[in-house]
């Protein structure tokens, strides 16, 4: 599955990046975020589009699996 690393970016940039990436990969995506606001906001965006989001917490970052 395609992986998108948004580390170093602050909101709303990770949401914009996720929006673009999901247009190219509508079947799903793994998004790496490195702050809580991005984790929450990317999750909200994907959920609003009807995706399921599985969250895996790492050291100072989260891996969001966005799935149909």
């Amino acid at each position, binding site marked *: 599955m395609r992986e998108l690393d948004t580390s170093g970016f602050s909101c709303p940039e990770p*949401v914009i990046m996720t929006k673009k990436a999901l247009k190219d990969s509508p079947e799903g995506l793994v998004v790496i975020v490195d702050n*809580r606001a991005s984790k929450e906001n990317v999750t*909200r965006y994907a959920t609003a589009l009807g995706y399921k989001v599985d969250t895996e917490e790492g050291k100072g970052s989260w891996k969001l699996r966005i799935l149909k």
Partner: protein
Amino acid sequence: MEEVRLTQLVRSSGCNAKLPPGDLHNALDNLTQRRCESLIEGFESSDDALVYDLGDNRVLIETVDFFPPMVDDPEVFGEIAAANSISDIYAMGGEPEIAMSLMCFPSCLDISVMRCIMQGAIRKTEEAGVVIAGGHTLSDREPKFGLAVTGFACKNEVWTNKGAREGDAVILTKKLGVGIQMTAHKAGETGAEEAIMQMRTLNKKAKEAAGGLSIHAATDVTGFSLMGHSYEVASASDVTIEIEFSSLRYLDKTEEFARFGFVPEGRYTNEDYLSDKIALPDNLTLSQRDMLFTPETSGGLLLFMSPLDADEYLKRVDSAYAIGKVKEKGEKPVVVRM
């Protein structure tokens, strides 16, 4: 000249750039200073400005506020920053008169941009009857601008966070949702025209319309969100403030933008600090929570007055509306009802 996009130069913008309230308290609580007898409101209180007793029933009110741009047009940014800075004087019931500017300016920008920011600020200060007397400018990677504003009032007419009474009506004078709207704007989802127009609007009329009425407490709604500023009043006044969610007026599509994750970072740090101080209804959606805790920029006045005075005030100010009432102090300082 190359087109300037001020918002692309900054990490956070407007009142969302404020440090989280919890961090501020950790850093600053219990610092001690020499007492100043003439200082009626100072470091210890959470009011919008200092109040200094000049004698003869006159007080000086002083505040400072500055932030990074939330719009690309430098003149509009100047207007918004000035309106936001001056608002703290209105929130204390004062008449603003003089100001000093604070400017952080990146070397990558054409110097004419600075002039545009100042032109916007002067347009707004003139509308408020304020003169900018000078200022200070720094070179910085991110642009920032604001004013230190001085105003005056009669000592017995100053509005503070203290003094909200059981039975008071709670009135708000602008719509909510600016923080969410401007996050969506930065993402290219909306022109945010209404939010920008509202941020540029001085709280001058909202303050002056209270003439002859008895305002028991007041503040303005900015970076700490409606919840945070309500909490400050409830805490200082030793009461509980009950807010009806259904009565809150939000800028168009705010809830939809929140649902799609256009939520500023400050929303999360605000809730971290406030979660144990506020009772929320069980059926509040996640987006509605976002809307309550999101920072506002250049928001409206939050006024506390008797229901009779509130009726009169609402007749005088078209944009104002009642959002709740003050109750006897209960378990939580702020209670939100659907």
